[in-house]
Protein backbone atom coordinates (compact mmCIF):
# COMPACT_ATOMS: atom_id res chain seq x y z
CA UNK A 1 0.00 0.00 0.00
CA UNK A 2 2.99 2.25 -0.27
CA UNK A 3 3.76 4.48 -3.25
CA UNK A 4 4.45 1.56 -5.52
CA UNK A 5 0.96 0.21 -5.12
CA UNK A 6 -0.93 3.47 -5.46
CA UNK A 7 -4.48 2.64 -6.40
CA UNK A 8 -5.74 3.27 -9.88
CA UNK A 9 -8.18 5.92 -8.70
CA UNK A 10 -5.37 8.13 -7.54
CA UNK A 11 -3.63 10.78 -9.62
CA UNK A 12 -0.20 11.50 -8.23
CA UNK A 13 0.53 15.13 -7.53
CA UNK A 14 1.68 17.74 -5.02
CA UNK A 15 -1.02 20.40 -5.36
CA UNK A 16 -2.83 22.17 -2.54
CA UNK A 17 -5.62 19.62 -2.90
CA UNK A 18 -3.16 16.73 -2.58
CA UNK A 19 -1.39 18.16 0.46
CA UNK A 20 -4.51 19.10 2.40
CA UNK A 21 -5.11 17.17 5.63
CA UNK A 22 -7.30 14.19 4.69
CA UNK A 23 -9.81 14.57 7.50
CA UNK A 24 -10.50 18.14 6.43
CA UNK A 25 -10.95 16.97 2.84
CA UNK A 26 -13.48 14.31 3.83
CA UNK A 27 -15.39 16.79 5.99
CA UNK A 28 -15.33 19.36 3.19
CA UNK A 29 -16.70 16.78 0.75
CA UNK A 30 -19.54 15.97 3.15
CA UNK A 31 -20.53 19.62 3.62
CA UNK A 32 -20.27 20.37 -0.10
CA UNK A 33 -22.48 17.45 -1.10
CA UNK A 34 -25.11 18.24 1.53
CA UNK A 35 -25.21 21.83 0.29
CA UNK A 36 -25.65 20.62 -3.30
CA UNK A 37 -28.48 18.27 -2.36
CA UNK A 38 -30.19 20.96 -0.29
CA UNK A 39 -30.22 23.37 -3.24
CA UNK A 40 -33.66 23.71 -4.86
CA UNK A 41 -33.56 22.10 -8.30
CA UNK A 42 -35.16 25.16 -9.92
CA UNK A 43 -32.18 27.34 -8.95
CA UNK A 44 -30.34 26.36 -12.12
CA UNK A 45 -27.50 28.94 -11.92
CA UNK A 46 -26.47 27.51 -8.53
CA UNK A 47 -25.44 24.28 -10.24
CA UNK A 48 -23.34 26.31 -12.66
CA UNK A 49 -21.49 27.75 -9.66
CA UNK A 50 -20.95 24.23 -8.28
CA UNK A 51 -19.59 23.09 -11.62
CA UNK A 52 -17.16 26.03 -11.66
CA UNK A 53 -16.05 25.20 -8.09
CA UNK A 54 -15.41 21.57 -9.01
CA UNK A 55 -13.67 22.61 -12.21
CA UNK A 56 -11.38 24.88 -10.21
CA UNK A 57 -10.44 22.04 -7.88
CA UNK A 58 -9.77 19.77 -10.86
CA UNK A 59 -7.60 22.43 -12.50
CA UNK A 60 -5.65 23.22 -9.33
CA UNK A 61 -5.04 19.57 -8.50
CA UNK A 62 -4.14 18.62 -12.07
CA UNK A 63 -6.70 15.84 -12.34
CA UNK A 64 -7.33 15.43 -16.08
CA UNK A 65 -10.89 16.02 -17.25
CA UNK A 66 -10.74 12.83 -19.30
CA UNK A 67 -10.07 10.85 -16.12
CA UNK A 68 -13.08 12.37 -14.38
CA UNK A 69 -15.37 11.74 -17.33
CA UNK A 70 -14.25 8.13 -17.59
CA UNK A 71 -14.90 7.55 -13.91
CA UNK A 72 -18.34 9.15 -14.16
CA UNK A 73 -19.50 6.02 -15.99
CA UNK A 74 -20.60 4.82 -12.55
CA UNK A 75 -23.53 7.22 -12.90
CA UNK A 76 -24.80 5.75 -16.15
CA UNK A 77 -27.60 3.55 -14.78
CA UNK A 78 -29.15 6.48 -12.99
CA UNK A 79 -28.71 8.73 -16.02
CA UNK A 80 -30.69 6.23 -18.09
CA UNK A 81 -33.35 6.39 -15.43
CA UNK A 82 -33.27 10.18 -15.58
CA UNK A 83 -33.68 10.19 -19.37
CA UNK A 84 -36.80 8.07 -19.07
CA UNK A 85 -38.41 10.15 -16.34
CA UNK A 86 -39.90 12.93 -18.49
CA UNK A 87 -41.71 10.31 -20.58
CA UNK A 88 -43.20 8.22 -17.79
CA UNK A 89 -43.76 10.96 -15.20
CA UNK A 90 -47.11 12.28 -14.08
CA UNK A 91 -49.25 15.20 -15.28
CA UNK A 92 -49.14 18.15 -15.98
CA UNK A 93 -47.52 17.72 -19.36
CA UNK A 94 -45.51 20.10 -21.49
CA UNK A 95 -44.98 19.94 -25.20
CA UNK A 96 -41.31 19.99 -26.07
CA UNK A 97 -40.40 19.87 -29.73
CA UNK A 98 -43.48 17.82 -30.53
CA UNK A 99 -42.95 15.40 -27.65
CA UNK A 100 -45.27 15.30 -24.69
CA UNK A 101 -43.16 15.30 -21.54
CA UNK A 102 -44.11 15.38 -17.90
CA UNK A 103 -43.16 18.58 -16.11
CA UNK A 104 -42.48 16.80 -12.82
CA UNK A 105 -40.51 14.14 -14.66
CA UNK A 106 -38.41 16.76 -16.43
CA UNK A 107 -37.61 18.51 -13.17
CA UNK A 108 -36.74 15.20 -11.53
CA UNK A 109 -34.48 14.24 -14.40
CA UNK A 110 -32.67 17.54 -14.08
CA UNK A 111 -32.38 17.06 -10.30
CA UNK A 112 -30.80 13.63 -10.70
CA UNK A 113 -28.41 14.70 -13.43
CA UNK A 114 -27.32 17.92 -11.73
CA UNK A 115 -27.07 16.82 -8.10
CA UNK A 116 -25.88 13.30 -8.86
CA UNK A 117 -23.12 14.56 -11.17
CA UNK A 118 -21.91 17.15 -8.64
CA UNK A 119 -21.71 14.47 -5.96
CA UNK A 120 -19.94 11.97 -8.20
CA UNK A 121 -17.37 14.47 -9.41
CA UNK A 122 -16.69 15.69 -5.87
CA UNK A 123 -16.09 12.10 -4.69
CA UNK A 124 -13.87 11.36 -7.70
CA UNK A 125 -11.78 14.43 -6.88
CA UNK A 126 -11.37 13.28 -3.27
CA UNK A 127 -10.24 9.82 -4.35
CA UNK A 128 -7.98 11.25 -7.06
CA UNK A 129 -6.11 13.52 -4.66
CA UNK A 130 -5.98 11.27 -1.59
CA UNK A 131 -4.24 7.93 -1.12
CA UNK A 132 -6.25 5.15 0.50
CA UNK A 133 -4.23 5.05 3.75
CA UNK A 134 -4.66 8.82 4.01
CA UNK A 135 -8.42 8.52 3.72
CA UNK A 136 -8.35 5.89 6.45
CA UNK A 137 -6.31 8.06 8.82
CA UNK A 138 -8.62 10.93 7.91
CA UNK A 139 -11.63 8.87 8.96
CA UNK A 140 -9.79 7.97 12.16
CA UNK A 141 -9.25 11.64 12.95
CA UNK A 142 -12.92 12.32 12.29
CA UNK A 143 -13.68 9.94 15.19
CA UNK A 144 -14.99 7.13 13.01
CA UNK A 145 -14.93 4.08 15.35
CA UNK A 146 -11.61 2.22 15.22
CA UNK A 147 -13.07 -1.18 14.20
CA UNK A 148 -14.65 0.42 11.12
CA UNK A 149 -11.34 1.94 10.07
CA UNK A 150 -9.46 -1.30 10.75
CA UNK A 151 -11.92 -3.37 8.71
CA UNK A 152 -11.77 -0.84 5.90
CA UNK A 153 -7.97 -1.07 5.92
CA UNK A 154 -8.01 -4.84 5.69
CA UNK A 155 -10.69 -4.70 3.05
CA UNK A 156 -8.60 -2.50 0.79
CA UNK A 157 -5.61 -4.83 1.22
CA UNK A 158 -7.64 -7.97 0.61
CA UNK A 159 -9.16 -6.53 -2.55
CA UNK A 160 -5.81 -6.94 -4.22
CA UNK A 161 -5.37 -10.43 -2.76
CA UNK A 162 -8.77 -11.45 -4.09
CA UNK A 163 -8.13 -9.88 -7.48
CA UNK A 164 -4.85 -11.78 -7.72
CA UNK A 165 -6.42 -15.11 -6.70
CA UNK A 166 -9.27 -14.54 -9.09
CA UNK A 167 -7.07 -13.87 -12.08
CA UNK A 168 -5.02 -17.00 -11.31
CA UNK A 169 -8.19 -19.09 -11.09
CA UNK A 170 -9.46 -17.64 -14.32
CA UNK A 171 -6.27 -18.48 -16.12
CA UNK A 172 -6.48 -22.01 -14.75
CA UNK A 173 -10.10 -22.38 -15.86
CA UNK A 174 -9.47 -20.93 -19.30
CA UNK A 175 -6.47 -23.24 -19.73
CA UNK A 176 -8.84 -26.17 -19.19
CA UNK A 177 -11.25 -24.97 -21.83
CA UNK A 178 -13.88 -23.38 -19.58
CA UNK A 179 -15.86 -20.45 -20.88
CA UNK A 180 -18.34 -18.74 -18.59
CA UNK A 181 -21.86 -18.45 -19.90
CA UNK A 182 -24.86 -17.20 -18.00
CA UNK A 183 -27.40 -18.70 -15.64
CA UNK A 184 -27.00 -22.36 -16.50
CA UNK A 185 -23.51 -22.32 -15.12
CA UNK A 186 -24.45 -20.80 -11.81
CA UNK A 187 -23.15 -23.83 -9.99
CA UNK A 188 -19.63 -23.50 -11.37
CA UNK A 189 -19.74 -19.83 -10.49
CA UNK A 190 -20.96 -20.58 -6.97
CA UNK A 191 -18.35 -23.24 -6.25
CA UNK A 192 -15.55 -21.13 -7.66
CA UNK A 193 -16.71 -18.22 -5.51
CA UNK A 194 -16.43 -20.56 -2.54
CA UNK A 195 -12.97 -21.72 -3.53
CA UNK A 196 -11.95 -18.12 -4.10
CA UNK A 197 -13.09 -17.19 -0.61
CA UNK A 198 -11.16 -20.00 1.08
CA UNK A 199 -8.00 -19.37 -0.90
CA UNK A 200 -8.13 -15.63 -0.24
CA UNK A 201 -8.85 -16.22 3.43
CA UNK A 202 -5.90 -18.52 3.90
CA UNK A 203 -3.60 -16.11 2.11
CA UNK A 204 -5.02 -13.26 4.17
CA UNK A 205 -4.53 -15.23 7.37
CA UNK A 206 -0.85 -15.59 6.57
CA UNK A 207 -0.66 -11.85 5.90
CA UNK A 208 -2.31 -11.20 9.24
CA UNK A 209 0.07 -13.48 11.12
CA UNK A 210 3.00 -11.78 9.43
CA UNK A 211 1.62 -8.42 10.55
CA UNK A 212 1.12 -9.64 14.14
CA UNK A 213 4.66 -10.99 14.28
CA UNK A 214 5.88 -7.54 13.26
CA UNK A 215 4.07 -5.85 16.08
CA UNK A 216 0.57 -5.14 14.72
CA UNK A 217 -1.83 -4.52 17.60
CA UNK A 218 -5.04 -3.54 15.86
CA UNK A 219 -4.39 -0.04 14.58
CA UNK A 220 -2.00 1.16 11.97
CA UNK A 221 0.61 3.61 13.27
CA UNK A 222 0.05 7.17 12.08
CA UNK A 223 3.36 8.57 10.92
CA UNK A 224 3.92 12.27 11.31
CA UNK A 225 0.36 13.29 12.05
CA UNK A 226 -0.05 16.50 10.12
CA UNK A 227 -0.45 19.57 12.24
CA UNK A 228 -3.45 21.60 11.16
CA UNK A 229 -3.22 25.37 11.06
CA UNK A 230 -5.90 27.95 10.56
CA UNK A 231 -4.74 28.35 6.97
CA UNK A 232 -5.53 24.67 6.33
CA UNK A 233 -9.04 25.13 7.66
CA UNK A 234 -9.55 28.18 5.45
CA UNK A 235 -8.28 26.33 2.37
CA UNK A 236 -10.33 23.21 3.03
CA UNK A 237 -13.60 24.89 3.86
CA UNK A 238 -13.50 27.72 1.33
CA UNK A 239 -15.22 25.57 -1.27
CA UNK A 240 -18.00 24.09 0.89
CA UNK A 241 -18.59 27.53 2.43
CA UNK A 242 -19.23 29.01 -1.01
CA UNK A 243 -21.52 26.08 -1.77
CA UNK A 244 -23.53 26.67 1.41
CA UNK A 245 -23.92 30.36 0.58
CA UNK A 246 -25.02 29.51 -2.97
CA UNK A 247 -27.53 26.95 -1.69
CA UNK A 248 -29.02 29.50 0.71
CA UNK A 249 -29.15 32.10 -2.08
CA UNK A 250 -30.91 29.52 -4.22
CA UNK A 251 -33.64 29.16 -1.63
CA UNK A 252 -34.03 32.92 -1.29
CA UNK A 253 -34.30 33.43 -5.06
CA UNK A 254 -36.71 30.56 -5.68
CA UNK A 255 -38.92 31.28 -2.68
Amino acid at each position, binding site marked *: MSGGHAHTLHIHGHSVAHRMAPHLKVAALGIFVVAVVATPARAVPAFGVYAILLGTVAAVSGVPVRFIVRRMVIEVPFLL*FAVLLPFVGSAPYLSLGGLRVSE*AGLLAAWTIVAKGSCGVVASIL*LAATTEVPEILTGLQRLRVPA*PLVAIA*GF*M*VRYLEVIAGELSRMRVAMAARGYEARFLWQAKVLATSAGALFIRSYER*GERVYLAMVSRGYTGTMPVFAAQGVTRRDYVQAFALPAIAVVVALAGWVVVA
Partner: protein
Amino acid sequence: MHIPDGFINGVTSAGAGVVAAGGLTAALRQAGARLKDRHIPLAGLVAAFVFVLQMLNFPVLPGMSGHLLGGALAAILMGPSVGIVVVSVVVIIQALLFADGGVSALGLNVINMAVVTTLVGWFVFRAIRIPLRPTRRSVLVATFVAATVSVAASAGAFVLEYAMGGVGGIDISTVSLLMIGVHVLIGLGEAAITVGVVGAVLSTRPDLVYGAADLAGDATRSTVSNRRFVGVAVVVAVALLGLATIASANPDGLEWVAARVGLAGSAQESAVASSPVAGYEVTGSGAFGTVLAGALGLGVTFGVGYGLLRLFRRRSTTKPAVPRSAR
Protein backbone atom coordinates in the same frame (compact mmCIF):
# COMPACT_ATOMS: atom_id res chain seq x y z
CA MET B 1 -29.21 0.16 -5.92
CA HIS B 2 -26.52 2.61 -4.90
CA ILE B 3 -28.61 5.75 -4.53
CA PRO B 4 -26.79 8.84 -5.84
CA ASP B 5 -27.01 12.37 -4.44
CA GLY B 6 -30.28 14.10 -5.17
CA PHE B 7 -32.30 10.99 -5.95
CA ILE B 8 -34.15 10.97 -2.65
CA ASN B 9 -34.94 14.36 -1.09
CA GLY B 10 -32.81 15.92 1.61
CA VAL B 11 -35.16 15.41 4.56
CA THR B 12 -35.55 11.67 3.92
CA SER B 13 -31.80 11.31 3.35
CA ALA B 14 -31.01 13.11 6.60
CA GLY B 15 -33.51 10.98 8.52
CA ALA B 16 -32.02 7.85 7.02
CA GLY B 17 -28.58 9.09 8.02
CA VAL B 18 -29.67 9.34 11.65
CA VAL B 19 -31.28 5.88 11.57
CA ALA B 20 -28.24 4.33 9.88
CA ALA B 21 -25.82 5.92 12.35
CA GLY B 22 -27.92 4.61 15.22
CA GLY B 23 -28.07 1.12 13.75
CA LEU B 24 -24.35 1.08 13.05
CA THR B 25 -23.53 2.27 16.57
CA ALA B 26 -25.75 -0.41 18.08
CA ALA B 27 -24.15 -3.06 15.86
CA LEU B 28 -20.66 -1.88 16.82
CA ARG B 29 -21.54 -2.03 20.51
CA GLN B 30 -22.96 -5.55 20.11
CA ALA B 31 -20.00 -6.67 18.04
CA GLY B 32 -17.50 -4.94 20.32
CA ALA B 33 -15.90 -7.87 22.08
CA ARG B 34 -15.66 -10.03 18.99
CA LEU B 35 -14.13 -7.34 16.85
CA LYS B 36 -11.01 -6.77 18.92
CA ASP B 37 -9.09 -9.96 18.25
CA ARG B 38 -8.25 -11.80 15.09
CA HIS B 39 -11.75 -11.46 13.68
CA ILE B 40 -10.80 -8.14 12.16
CA PRO B 41 -8.95 -9.76 9.24
CA LEU B 42 -11.86 -12.12 8.57
CA ALA B 43 -14.18 -9.12 8.69
CA GLY B 44 -11.89 -7.35 6.25
CA LEU B 45 -11.90 -10.31 3.91
CA VAL B 46 -15.68 -10.64 4.01
CA ALA B 47 -15.87 -6.90 3.33
CA ALA B 48 -13.56 -7.23 0.32
CA PHE B 49 -15.59 -10.15 -0.91
CA VAL B 50 -18.87 -8.29 -0.51
CA PHE B 51 -17.25 -5.38 -2.31
CA VAL B 52 -16.47 -7.59 -5.30
CA LEU B 53 -19.99 -9.06 -5.23
CA GLN B 54 -21.49 -5.59 -5.27
CA MET B 55 -19.55 -4.71 -8.39
CA LEU B 56 -21.41 -7.39 -10.33
CA ASN B 57 -23.76 -4.79 -11.66
CA PHE B 58 -26.79 -5.45 -13.84
CA PRO B 59 -27.85 -2.31 -15.69
CA VAL B 60 -31.53 -2.96 -15.17
CA LEU B 61 -33.86 -0.78 -17.18
CA PRO B 62 -35.42 1.65 -16.64
CA GLY B 63 -32.16 2.75 -15.24
CA MET B 64 -32.16 1.40 -11.75
CA SER B 65 -29.11 -0.74 -11.46
CA GLY B 66 -29.24 -3.92 -9.48
CA HIS B 67 -26.39 -6.01 -8.18
CA LEU B 68 -25.52 -8.64 -5.65
CA LEU B 69 -25.54 -7.32 -2.08
CA GLY B 70 -23.72 -9.79 0.15
CA GLY B 71 -25.54 -8.95 3.40
CA ALA B 72 -26.78 -12.49 4.01
CA LEU B 73 -23.29 -13.87 3.40
CA ALA B 74 -21.81 -11.47 5.95
CA ALA B 75 -24.51 -12.31 8.50
CA ILE B 76 -24.12 -16.08 8.16
CA LEU B 77 -20.33 -15.99 8.23
CA MET B 78 -19.92 -13.39 10.96
CA GLY B 79 -23.21 -12.96 12.77
CA PRO B 80 -25.70 -10.12 12.31
CA SER B 81 -23.95 -7.39 14.28
CA VAL B 82 -20.52 -7.85 12.72
CA GLY B 83 -22.31 -8.35 9.39
CA ILE B 84 -23.88 -4.91 9.60
CA VAL B 85 -20.52 -3.35 10.45
CA VAL B 86 -18.80 -5.14 7.58
CA VAL B 87 -21.28 -4.25 4.86
CA SER B 88 -21.49 -0.67 6.15
CA VAL B 89 -17.74 -0.36 5.71
CA VAL B 90 -18.14 -1.52 2.12
CA VAL B 91 -20.85 1.04 1.40
CA ILE B 92 -18.92 3.89 3.04
CA ILE B 93 -15.70 3.11 1.16
CA GLN B 94 -17.61 2.82 -2.10
CA ALA B 95 -19.08 6.29 -1.60
CA LEU B 96 -15.78 7.91 -0.62
CA LEU B 97 -13.34 6.14 -2.94
CA PHE B 98 -15.35 4.96 -5.90
CA ALA B 99 -18.07 7.61 -6.08
CA ASP B 100 -20.57 4.75 -6.05
CA GLY B 101 -23.58 6.00 -4.12
CA GLY B 102 -23.90 9.61 -3.02
CA VAL B 103 -22.24 10.88 0.14
CA SER B 104 -25.47 12.56 1.19
CA ALA B 105 -27.35 9.30 0.51
CA LEU B 106 -24.96 7.28 2.64
CA GLY B 107 -27.60 6.72 5.32
CA LEU B 108 -30.07 5.36 2.77
CA ASN B 109 -27.48 3.10 1.22
CA VAL B 110 -26.30 1.79 4.58
CA ILE B 111 -29.89 1.00 5.56
CA ASN B 112 -30.75 -0.75 2.29
CA MET B 113 -27.59 -2.67 1.67
CA ALA B 114 -26.11 -3.24 5.13
CA VAL B 115 -28.80 -3.13 7.80
CA VAL B 116 -31.83 -4.56 5.99
CA THR B 117 -30.01 -7.32 4.08
CA THR B 118 -28.05 -8.47 7.10
CA LEU B 119 -30.91 -8.45 9.59
CA VAL B 120 -33.49 -9.97 7.24
CA GLY B 121 -30.97 -12.53 6.01
CA TRP B 122 -30.04 -13.51 9.54
CA PHE B 123 -33.59 -13.83 10.84
CA VAL B 124 -34.77 -15.82 7.85
CA PHE B 125 -31.71 -18.04 8.22
CA ARG B 126 -32.44 -18.63 11.91
CA ALA B 127 -36.16 -19.12 11.36
CA ILE B 128 -35.60 -21.81 8.75
CA ARG B 129 -32.96 -23.59 10.76
CA ILE B 130 -35.06 -23.89 13.94
CA PRO B 131 -37.38 -26.70 12.76
CA LEU B 132 -34.66 -28.49 10.78
CA ARG B 133 -32.03 -30.87 12.06
CA PRO B 134 -28.60 -29.30 12.40
CA THR B 135 -27.07 -30.70 9.26
CA ARG B 136 -24.95 -29.24 6.52
CA ARG B 137 -27.83 -29.52 4.11
CA SER B 138 -30.27 -27.61 6.30
CA VAL B 139 -27.69 -24.84 6.73
CA LEU B 140 -27.31 -24.54 2.97
CA VAL B 141 -31.06 -24.54 2.33
CA ALA B 142 -31.52 -21.85 4.97
CA THR B 143 -28.66 -19.91 3.40
CA PHE B 144 -30.28 -20.08 -0.01
CA VAL B 145 -33.65 -18.76 1.11
CA ALA B 146 -32.12 -16.15 3.42
CA ALA B 147 -29.96 -14.73 0.64
CA THR B 148 -32.87 -14.49 -1.82
CA VAL B 149 -35.24 -12.91 0.68
CA SER B 150 -32.61 -10.46 1.92
CA VAL B 151 -32.14 -9.01 -1.55
CA ALA B 152 -35.88 -8.68 -2.12
CA ALA B 153 -36.22 -7.01 1.30
CA SER B 154 -33.51 -4.54 0.38
CA ALA B 155 -35.40 -3.65 -2.79
CA GLY B 156 -38.50 -3.24 -0.62
CA ALA B 157 -36.66 -0.79 1.61
CA PHE B 158 -35.65 1.19 -1.46
CA VAL B 159 -39.28 1.33 -2.62
CA LEU B 160 -40.35 2.60 0.79
CA GLU B 161 -37.70 5.32 0.68
CA TYR B 162 -38.71 6.25 -2.85
CA ALA B 163 -42.30 6.54 -1.71
CA MET B 164 -41.27 8.82 1.13
CA GLY B 165 -38.93 11.15 -0.72
CA GLY B 166 -38.10 10.07 -4.24
CA VAL B 167 -37.96 12.58 -7.05
CA GLY B 168 -39.63 12.00 -10.36
CA GLY B 169 -43.25 11.18 -9.64
CA ILE B 170 -43.02 7.67 -11.04
CA ASP B 171 -45.91 5.50 -10.05
CA ILE B 172 -44.98 3.70 -6.82
CA SER B 173 -46.46 0.42 -7.96
CA THR B 174 -44.30 0.57 -11.10
CA VAL B 175 -41.22 1.18 -9.01
CA SER B 176 -42.05 -1.58 -6.57
CA LEU B 177 -42.86 -4.13 -9.25
CA LEU B 178 -39.67 -3.42 -11.12
CA MET B 179 -37.37 -3.19 -8.14
CA ILE B 180 -38.69 -6.14 -6.17
CA GLY B 181 -39.29 -8.28 -9.24
CA VAL B 182 -35.85 -7.73 -10.67
CA HIS B 183 -34.26 -8.21 -7.28
CA VAL B 184 -35.92 -11.58 -6.84
CA LEU B 185 -33.92 -12.69 -9.87
CA ILE B 186 -30.78 -11.02 -8.60
CA GLY B 187 -31.50 -12.64 -5.26
CA LEU B 188 -31.35 -16.07 -6.87
CA GLY B 189 -27.91 -15.29 -8.25
CA GLU B 190 -26.92 -14.00 -4.84
CA ALA B 191 -28.30 -17.17 -3.24
CA ALA B 192 -26.28 -19.39 -5.58
CA ILE B 193 -23.07 -17.56 -4.77
CA THR B 194 -23.80 -17.35 -1.05
CA VAL B 195 -24.52 -21.09 -0.91
CA GLY B 196 -21.33 -21.75 -2.86
CA VAL B 197 -19.23 -19.72 -0.46
CA VAL B 198 -20.87 -20.97 2.74
CA GLY B 199 -20.69 -24.55 1.46
CA ALA B 200 -17.02 -24.27 0.63
CA VAL B 201 -16.19 -22.68 3.96
CA LEU B 202 -18.20 -25.35 5.81
CA SER B 203 -16.22 -28.06 4.04
CA THR B 204 -12.78 -26.75 4.81
CA ARG B 205 -13.03 -24.29 7.69
CA PRO B 206 -16.33 -24.86 9.54
CA ASP B 207 -14.94 -22.82 12.42
CA LEU B 208 -15.35 -19.70 10.30
CA VAL B 209 -19.14 -20.00 9.86
CA TYR B 210 -20.85 -18.16 12.71
CA GLY B 211 -24.33 -19.29 11.70
CA ALA B 212 -23.35 -22.96 11.80
CA ALA B 213 -21.40 -23.00 15.04
CA ASP B 214 -23.64 -25.85 16.27
CA LEU B 215 -22.37 -28.29 13.66
CA ALA B 216 -18.70 -27.44 13.72
CA GLY B 217 -18.06 -30.98 14.97
CA ASP B 218 -19.56 -33.00 12.13
CA ALA B 219 -19.08 -31.12 8.91
CA THR B 220 -19.51 -34.23 6.83
CA ARG B 221 -19.29 -33.63 3.14
CA SER B 222 -22.55 -33.84 1.30
CA THR B 223 -23.29 -31.65 -1.63
CA VAL B 224 -26.65 -30.29 -2.63
CA SER B 225 -27.68 -32.02 -5.83
CA ASN B 226 -28.16 -29.95 -8.94
CA ARG B 227 -31.79 -30.93 -9.27
CA ARG B 228 -32.65 -30.05 -5.71
CA PHE B 229 -30.81 -26.76 -6.07
CA VAL B 230 -32.84 -25.78 -9.13
CA GLY B 231 -36.02 -27.00 -7.44
CA VAL B 232 -35.55 -24.79 -4.40
CA ALA B 233 -34.62 -21.90 -6.68
CA VAL B 234 -37.83 -22.21 -8.71
CA VAL B 235 -40.05 -22.51 -5.62
CA VAL B 236 -38.50 -19.48 -3.98
CA ALA B 237 -38.70 -17.46 -7.20
CA VAL B 238 -42.35 -18.27 -7.78
CA ALA B 239 -43.27 -17.57 -4.16
CA LEU B 240 -41.51 -14.22 -4.13
CA LEU B 241 -42.80 -13.25 -7.56
CA GLY B 242 -46.29 -13.98 -6.32
CA LEU B 243 -45.74 -11.91 -3.20
CA ALA B 244 -44.27 -9.06 -5.20
CA THR B 245 -47.14 -8.91 -7.65
CA ILE B 246 -49.75 -9.15 -4.92
CA ALA B 247 -47.95 -6.42 -3.03
CA SER B 248 -47.68 -4.14 -6.02
CA ALA B 249 -51.24 -4.77 -7.12
CA ASN B 250 -52.33 -3.45 -3.73
CA PRO B 251 -49.91 -0.65 -3.02
CA ASP B 252 -52.30 1.08 -0.61
CA GLY B 253 -49.78 1.10 2.22
CA LEU B 254 -47.20 2.82 0.12
CA GLU B 255 -49.67 5.25 -1.39
CA TRP B 256 -50.79 6.11 2.08
CA VAL B 257 -47.23 6.90 3.02
CA ALA B 258 -46.81 8.90 -0.17
CA ALA B 259 -49.95 10.89 0.53
CA ARG B 260 -48.91 11.55 4.11
CA VAL B 261 -45.68 13.18 3.05
CA GLY B 262 -47.33 15.17 0.30
CA LEU B 263 -46.31 13.06 -2.62
CA ALA B 264 -49.77 11.98 -3.63
CA GLY B 265 -49.11 13.28 -7.12
CA SER B 266 -46.57 10.55 -7.57
CA ALA B 267 -49.25 7.90 -7.77
CA GLN B 268 -51.02 9.21 -10.82
CA GLU B 269 -51.63 7.63 -14.17
CA SER B 270 -48.44 7.26 -16.14
CA ALA B 271 -47.85 8.46 -19.67
CA VAL B 272 -47.67 4.91 -20.98
CA ALA B 273 -51.10 4.13 -19.55
CA SER B 274 -52.33 3.00 -22.92
CA SER B 275 -49.60 0.43 -23.48
CA PRO B 276 -50.63 -3.23 -23.30
CA VAL B 277 -49.02 -3.93 -19.94
CA ALA B 278 -50.10 -0.63 -18.36
CA GLY B 279 -50.97 -1.03 -14.72
CA TYR B 280 -49.24 -4.38 -14.99
CA GLU B 281 -52.31 -6.32 -15.83
CA VAL B 282 -52.88 -8.12 -19.09
CA THR B 283 -56.31 -6.78 -19.91
CA GLY B 284 -59.25 -8.53 -18.35
CA SER B 285 -57.40 -11.42 -16.76
CA GLY B 286 -57.37 -10.37 -13.11
CA ALA B 287 -54.76 -11.50 -10.63
CA PHE B 288 -53.35 -14.14 -12.92
CA GLY B 289 -52.86 -11.44 -15.53
CA THR B 290 -50.95 -9.35 -13.04
CA VAL B 291 -48.57 -12.20 -12.34
CA LEU B 292 -48.23 -12.91 -16.06
CA ALA B 293 -47.50 -9.28 -16.83
CA GLY B 294 -45.02 -9.17 -13.99
CA ALA B 295 -43.20 -12.23 -15.29
CA LEU B 296 -43.25 -10.78 -18.80
CA GLY B 297 -41.82 -7.49 -17.63
CA LEU B 298 -39.18 -9.32 -15.66
CA GLY B 299 -38.18 -11.34 -18.68
CA VAL B 300 -37.90 -8.28 -20.84
CA THR B 301 -35.96 -6.20 -18.33
CA PHE B 302 -33.68 -9.08 -17.59
CA GLY B 303 -33.10 -9.71 -21.28
CA VAL B 304 -32.23 -6.09 -21.92
CA GLY B 305 -30.01 -5.99 -18.83
CA TYR B 306 -28.26 -9.15 -19.88
CA GLY B 307 -27.74 -7.82 -23.39
CA LEU B 308 -26.19 -4.63 -22.07
CA LEU B 309 -24.03 -6.66 -19.74
CA ARG B 310 -22.69 -8.73 -22.62
CA LEU B 311 -22.10 -5.59 -24.60
CA PHE B 312 -20.10 -3.93 -21.83
CA ARG B 313 -18.25 -7.13 -21.09
CA ARG B 314 -17.10 -7.68 -24.62
CA ARG B 315 -15.70 -4.20 -24.77
CA SER B 316 -13.64 -4.64 -21.63
CA THR B 317 -12.21 -8.12 -22.11
CA THR B 318 -8.74 -6.72 -22.65
CA LYS B 319 -8.23 -5.46 -19.13
CA PRO B 320 -8.55 -7.86 -16.22
CA ALA B 321 -11.38 -6.04 -14.47
CA VAL B 322 -12.21 -7.68 -11.16
CA PRO B 323 -15.99 -7.33 -11.27
CA ARG B 324 -16.77 -8.87 -14.63
CA SER B 325 -14.20 -11.58 -14.49
CA ALA B 326 -15.78 -12.76 -11.24
CA ARG B 327 -18.57 -14.16 -13.31
